[in-house]
């Protein structure tokens, strides 16, 4: 009865393959675009690769970009598993970053072993609340999360801008810099490698991915989330409360996004600035390429991290505008969607055949 590979592993491998095919397709099409623009695609990709891996510093940069992308991708993945489309990751991310930086700049005089976790918790709570709000709105009033999360993004940006601009505020903010004050050393995420910017945010990200994987696939809560996401009818039949489940899933989603923001504030900039990081939108792509599987998200987070870290080198070394990276990201998403269609093609064909069998089109029947 037991097969060598369980169906789930097999399915995960198939979807991984789909992602790889999509990425290769996107790189080919991206290469064609570069060729048409008169650049040498091979040189460009080599420069991109070097920019991400050629030395210690480059590898450090890759992790710096990957950490928030993995956490953001996880945020997208847990929401998606519950059937929610969270495009408010950017807003949840800045709320988390802002909260952690405020707390870190306050100088509570705590040792790092206490202070840092406290700041991370603050980020998770702030981001979590920002994710919970659209969850509540959806569960209680039916307001669609796609609308409410976009709106909450703007509200988050403006609240933070408003708060940091306030002169002589009781908050530790710096209106000149449009940012919070610099955080104290005890609140910093430690740097991992001398001479690089690699910080412990990448460890937080990978640990979060592993924990989320266990939660999703080994716990009853994860079972409830996945049931709700796949079939509301089966969920209510199984006694699973849809509203409560999506609210919790959205809170977790927001908390993960908040942690991504904390990584930027506590590990990289040592303050929260009002410059939008933009990771929240790329995170959607990271989640999709990772097939909303936490372990897949680690890989796809690194992939997008490599693209971002290598882009400056591609521009300086191969003379290809780094904007092409955005084109590549877009192409990858497009290719993922296209490959998914191929994946479902046999099922679609079957459905078409049976639809033709049982319900021919009205006009032809009336003809």
């Amino acid at each position, binding site marked *: 009865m037991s*097969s060598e590979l369980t169906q*789930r592993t097999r399915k995960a491998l198939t979807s991984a393959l789909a992602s790889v095919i999509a990425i290769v397709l996107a790189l080919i099409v991206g290469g064609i675009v570069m060729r048409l623009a008169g650049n040498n695609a091979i040189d460009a990709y080599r420069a991109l690769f070097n920019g991400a891996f050629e030395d210690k510093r480059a590898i450090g940069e890759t992790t710096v970009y990957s950490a928030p992308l993995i956490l953001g991708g996880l945020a997208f993945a847990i929401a998606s598993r519950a059937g929610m489309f969270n495009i408010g990751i950017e807003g949840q991310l800045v709320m988390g970053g802002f909260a952690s930086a405020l707390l870190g700049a306050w100088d509570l005089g705590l040792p790092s072993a206490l202070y840092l976790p406290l700041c991370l918790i603050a980020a998770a709570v702030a981001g979590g609340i920002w994710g919970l709000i659209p969850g509540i709105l959806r569960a209680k009033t039916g307001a669609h999360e796609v609308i409410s999360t976009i709106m909450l993004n703007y509200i988050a940006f403006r609240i933070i801008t408003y708060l940091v601009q306030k002169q002589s505020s009781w908050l530790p903010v710096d209106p000149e810099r449009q940012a919070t004050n610099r955080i104290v050393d005890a609140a910093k995420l430690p740097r991992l490698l001398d001479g690089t910017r690699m910080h412990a945010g990448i460890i937080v990200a990978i640990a979060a991915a592993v924990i989320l994987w266990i939660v999703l696939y080994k716990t009853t809560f994860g*079972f409830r989330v996945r049931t709700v996401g796949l079939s509301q009818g089966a969920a209510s039949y199984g006694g699973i409360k849809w509203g409560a489940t999506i609210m919790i899933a959205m809170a977790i989603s927001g908390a993960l996004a908040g942690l991504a923001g904390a990584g930027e504030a506590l590990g990289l900039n040592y303050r929260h600035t009002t410059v939008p990081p933009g990771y929240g939108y790329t995170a959607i792509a990271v989640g999709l390429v990772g097939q909303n599987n936490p372990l897949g998200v680690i890989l796809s987070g690194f992939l997008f991290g490599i693209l971002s870290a290598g882009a400056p080198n591609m521009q300086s070394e191969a003379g290809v505008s780094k904007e092409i990276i955005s084109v590549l990201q877009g192409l990858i998403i497009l290719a993922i969607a296209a490959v998914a269609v191929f994946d479902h093609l046999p099922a679609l064909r079957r459905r078409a055949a049976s639809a033709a069998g049982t319900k021919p089109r009205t006009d032809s029947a*009336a003809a």
Partner: protein
Amino acid sequence: MPQISPATPAITSPETASRPLAVEMIDIVKRFPGVVANDGITLQVYQGEIHALLGENGAGKSTLMNILFGLHHPDEGEIRINGSPVHFAGPRAAVEAGLGMVHQHFMLIPRFTVTENVILGTEGASVMLDRDAAAKRVAEIANAYGLNVDPLARVADIPVGLQQRVEILRALYQGSRILILDEPTALLTPQEVEDLYGILQRLRDGGTTVIFITHKLREIAAISDRVTVIRRGKTIGTVNTAESTGDQLAEMMVGREVQLRVERPPAHPGETIVELQNVVVTGGHGQKTLDVASLNLRRGEILGVCGVEGNGQTELIEVLSGLRTPESGEVRVKGTNISGGDATAFREAGVSYIPEDRHNRGLVLDFPLWENVLLGNTQRGSFARNGFVRQGRIRALTRSLMARFDVRAPSDTTPARSLSGGNQQKLIIARELERDPDVLLAIQPTRGLDVGAIEFVHRQIVEARDQHKAVLVLSFDLDEVMDLSDRIAVLYQGQIVGVFDGDKVSRTELGLFMGGRSRDEQRTDTTHA
């Protein structure tokens, strides 16, 4: 299902041997990706006969008829209409050759009148519609065959049985001499079915050839002259209805001997375990969609619930399974009122529920079988501990349930989606009975299953009763309700309009109550009593 006795005297088998053939389909092959839907089917239909096409779900009946009507093109084979070979490019060509088809799901525009729907597609090249002339012509045809439809009524306002007549009218209006009906009785009340039989007989007597698709044996006995049986895309044979028995036909259809009648020894009802009192559910417009004064379920007894679809069945089941809280009234299980509890509360009170919709309720199709066994059981210690799923145990349990309930699947990690309907249903039944419930709700338990699986499901239901559980069976298949039930309750417009002894009540009597026709008589009876 009842034994099929020779056709009733009123329907005599016409002398067919000397008649010309209306339809000949010879060695038809049709392949779809991954399946051969028709694998060399031959069908010969005489002019002016009622010919039944019998087969299980997926046997290839609808495909064959869609080929005949020009909706599909055969990969191989030959079609002749009235002796001459035809190659239909599409349905329009089929209609021109004198064919008409009534689909299972009607192709009517609800906002249009009967006449407008009938003339749709044949309104002609002229810009102006001559509605009056058209209505007159429609009325003429309707009268000729006893179709009794008001040509000016809006389709949205007339019942399903009449809508079907509009479909038939349209085919006749278009000049069809060969009429194909795809499972025409699926949505009708028993009375509407009788009316349809009458119409088909009049059509046949007027020279129209009728082909109808069915998997119900009793329909064949009641109406057809000859029957062609199809199994797995192949013709098994054609027989004269009058010379065949239900057992023979069933065996031809399934490929082995089947138990058509449910073995149901006499019931030994015990104490009442579920009681509904004054349960009211209100619909979106404030009307009462369910209004049950009193309904009891007893241990060791199967209570059947019948009624025409849309008469409160959904609401009744949702109330009984905890999916819906009634506006008022009590649902007592073992003496405790748990109305207002959710599905978990009802499960914990001992109510198991085989839902009507396997795909959207009973299963998560993308989950492996073992996770589907976990559905509804997450609260139980043997399934989860400290919030962690006990995967090893559940998988072992799943494998043993698969063996016990004959769920055929490669492994316990196979996604539920890839199982056949029968195996999916067996998995649900296995999961629901594993809990050893006191009450089993079986809602349309055999919908879409083939005869072999139906036999298995029915046996499980009777076994559950014999294990002293209270069983409720709700089905739109009146034969199923009558075969299984010790008592039968009829739902009409949300009310229980009658409860009968399952072994004494007649089909006709139930049919009358289902149509609401004797509700008033019943009221007067009770006031006099």
